[in-house]
C-alpha cells in the first residue's frame, strides 16, 4: 500500500501549569522558570492510518480522545512527538462552526469553505453540489437564523464534505438531522472511504464502532492500551468500565444524568451482579438473541423470615423492558440467618434490540417493596446489546421473523 494518511509517532501532550500566567509568558523569554504542575493527558501514542481504513477511537470520558483529535486536526500542538498528515483533514467535529446567523446558507457556505482554506473559484465550482446535497430548498438563500437546527446541520455537513478529504474525522455528532439525512450522510462517508479516504471515528456506541470500523483503538489514561479488531477492543473496553463500577460506592454517577441510588434497610444487600454469557464469562456486551444468565449474589446481614428478589431491565430512557420477582415465581427464600449468601441465576434470551440497558434489583419480603424493603438498587448493572449477526432491525424487541414471500 502507499503512504499512510496519518502517522502519529510517540505523541505526548502535557498541560503545564505555572505559578501565574505571567510566569508562563516569562518562560518564553528563556528565563529559568519551572512550572508548578504538569498534567499529562497523552503519552506515547503511536499509530498509523492507511488510505481506506476506518478506525474507531474509544475510551472513557477523560481518556484523552478529544485532545488526541485536536492534535490530529492541528488545533493543538503536541508537547513531544510528531503527527504527519498526508493530505487534507476534514472534521465533522465542528459542524456549523463559524456560521453567522444573519447570513444566508449560501453566504455561510462560501465563508466556511473559505475557512477550510479553499479559494473563491474552488468554492464556486462546488456550491451547486453543496446546495443539492443539503436539500434545504429555497432556504439556501435565506438567513441561517430562520433555519431549524437540522437544516443548519444539513448545510454544515454538505459544506464540510464538499471536498473529499484524505482523512475524515467523525464523532458522535454524526446523528445529523433526520433519519433520511443520516442515511445520506453515512452513504457519503462510505463513498469517501471507497475512494480512499481514511476515517477516524470517535464514539461510545459499540454498534457504530463495530459496524463501521475495521480497527479500533482504546485509549485509557492517555495511553493506547488496545489496538486491534473492533470486537476484541470493545470487549476490553466494557470490562474496563465494569471494573470501574465495581470499585465505586453505592451512590454514584453512572453517566451525565444518571445516579445509581441505593435505598432500604440494608438487612440484605446485593453483593455482586453480573451478566454471564454462554461460555460462562461475565460480559457487558451481548449479541441480540444470545442466551445469558444474570447472576445475583445476595449477602444476608440479619436473620430474615423471608426474602424475595425482584429485578427489572430498563432501557436508556428508563422504560422497563421486563421485570419480575421470586414471589411471582414462587421461589421466595425462607428463614435466612445472618451471613447467609444466596445466589440467583436468572437465565434468559436477550431478545432486546441494540442499545444500552440497565438492571435494577430489589430485595423485599413480599410482592412489592412497600412492605419491607431490604435493598433497592437502581442501575445495579449496565450492559449493551449489539446486533452482531442478526438481520438489521429497528426497535427494542427482537421478534425473530420468518418472512415468506409468495
Amino acid at each position, binding site marked *: 500500500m502507499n503512504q499512510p494518511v496519518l502517522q502519529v509517532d510517540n505523541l505526548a501532550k502535557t*498541560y503545564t501549569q505555572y505559578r501565574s*500566567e*505571567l510566569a*508562563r*509568558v516569562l518562560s*518564553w523569554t528563556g528565563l529559568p522558570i519551572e512550572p508548578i504542575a504538569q498534567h499529562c493527558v497523552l503519552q506515547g501514542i503511536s499509530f498509523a492510518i492507511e488510505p481506506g481504513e476506518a478506525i474507531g477511537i474509544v475510551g472513557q470520558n477523560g481518556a484523552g480522545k478529544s485532545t488526541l483529535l*485536536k492534535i490530529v*486536526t*492541528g*488545533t*493543538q*500542538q503536541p508537547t513531544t512527538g510528531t503527527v504527519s498528515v498526508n493530505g487534507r*483533514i476534514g*472534521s465533522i*467535529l*465542528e459542524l456549523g*462552526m*463559524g456560521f*453567522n446567523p*444573519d*447570513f444566508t446558507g449560501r*453566504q455561510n457556505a*462560501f*465563508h466556511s469553505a*473559505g*475557512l*477550510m*482554506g*479553499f*479559494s*473563491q473559484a474552488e468554492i464556486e465550482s462546488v456550491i451547486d453540489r453543496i446546495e443539492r446535497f443539503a436539500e434545504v430548498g429555497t432556504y439556501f438563500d435565506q*438567513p441561517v437564523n430562520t433555519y431549524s437546527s437540522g437544516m443548519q446541520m444539513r448545510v454544515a455537513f454538505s459544506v464540510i464534505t464538499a471536498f473529499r478529504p484524505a482523512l475524515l474525522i467523525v464523532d458522535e455528532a454524526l446523528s445529523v438531522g433526520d433519519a433520511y439525512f443520516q442515511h445520506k450522510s453515512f452513504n457519503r462517508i462510505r463513498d469517501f472511504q471507497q475512494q480512499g479516504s481514511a476515517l477516524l471515528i470517535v464514539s461510545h456506541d459499540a454498534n457504530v464502532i463495530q459496524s463501521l470500523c475495521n480497527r479500533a483503538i482504546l485509549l485509557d489514561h492517555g495511553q493506547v492500551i488496545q489496538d486491534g479488531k473492533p470486537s476484541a477492543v470493545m470487549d476490553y473496553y466494557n470490562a474496563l468500565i465494569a471494573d470501574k463500577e465495581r470499585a465505586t460506592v453505592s451512590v454514584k454517577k453512572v453517566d451525565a444524568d444518571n445516579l445509581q441510588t441505593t435505598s432500604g434497610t440494608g438487612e440484605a444487600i446485593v453483593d455482586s451482579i453480573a451478566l454471564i454469557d454462554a461460555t460462562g464469562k461475565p460480559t457487558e456486551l451481548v449479541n441480540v438473541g444470545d442466551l445469558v444468565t444474570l447472576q445475583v449474589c445476595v449477602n444476608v446481614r440479619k436473620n430474615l423470615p423471608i426474602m424475595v428478589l425482584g429485578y427489572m431491565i430498563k432501557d436508556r430512557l428508563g422504560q422497563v423492558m421486563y421485570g419480575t420477582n421470586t414471589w411471582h415465581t414462587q421461589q421466595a427464600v425462607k428463614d435466612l440467618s445472618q451471613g447467609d449468601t444466596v445466589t440467583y441465576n436468572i437465565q434468559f434470551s436477550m431478545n432486546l434490540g441494540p442499545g444500552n440497558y440497565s438492571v435494577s434489583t430489589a430485595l423485599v419480603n413480599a410482592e412489592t417493596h412497600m412492605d419491607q424493603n431490604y435493598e433497592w438498587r437502581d442501575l445495579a448493572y449496565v450492559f449493551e446489546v449489539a446486533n452482531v449477526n442478526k438481520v438489521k432491525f429497528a426497535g427494542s424487541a427482537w421478534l425473530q421473523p420468518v418472512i415468506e414471500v409468495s
Partner: protein
Amino acid sequence: MKSLLLSAWRYRYFILSSIKVDFRRRFVRSRLGGLWMIINPLVQAAMFALILSQVLSGRLPDMSDNKLAYPVYLLSGTLAWNIFTEVINRCLTVFIENSNLLKKLVFPRICLPMIVTGSAMINNLLLLGSILLIIIVLGFTPGYNVIWLPLLMVITLTLSLGIGLILGTLNVFIRDIGQIVPIVLQLGWWFTPIVYPASIVPKAVLPFMRLNPMYWIVQSFQNAILFNTPPTWIALGCITLISLVLLRMSLILFRRASSEMVDVL
C-alpha cells in the same frame, strides 16, 4: 516568519471575505449599520467643538482669526486617535472572541488580527471621507499636504497593530490586560494634544509628552489637514522604526504563544 505570511496569503480569500462579512454584518440588522462606527467619533468631536471652541480656538498658532480652525483641529486628531484605539481594542479581544474557532478549526491564526485590522481600516477610511466632506461643507479647504494622509494612516496602523498584537496575545493568558488597556487608552487620549493645542501645555511637561509616539502622529494629522505643512519626518521616521520593531516582536511573541494559546482558551 515567512511561513506565517505565506499561510496568510493562502487564506487571502478567507481574509477578504471575512472583512466583507464583518462589514456587511453591521448592515444586516441596523439601518445605519457601519455608519454607527463613524458617528461615534464624529459626535464626540462635535461635543468638544461645541463646548471648548470658545476657550481654545484662539489658542491655535497662526489660526486666531479662523473660526473653523478648532473643529478641523479636533477632527484631525480624532481620526488619528480613532485608528490607533480601534485597532488596539479589536486586536486585544480578537483571540478570546474567536476562541471557539481557534479550538475547533485549523486555519492560520494570523488571519484573525489581519481581518480586524482590515475591517478597522475600512471604518477609518469611511471616517476620513466623512471628515473631509464635513470640513469642506463647513467651508474649509485643506491644502495639498493632505496627500500625506494615506502614509500617515499606514504608519498609525503599523504602530497600533504591533502594540495590539502583543497585548492581544498576552490578554489570552493574562486577562487583566483586557481591563487595563481601555483605561490606559483613556488616559492617553487626554495626554495627547487632541482637544487642546500643545502650546498650552506647561513647558516642564512637554518633553515627556513628546515621548508619546501618538503625540507626533496626531500632530502630523493636524499638520496635514489644518496647517497644511508636511509631517515632522525625523520623528515620524523614528516612530516607523519603532513600529516595525514592535510588529516584529509581536510576531515572535505570537509564534511562541500560539502553541499554548488553545490550551488556555
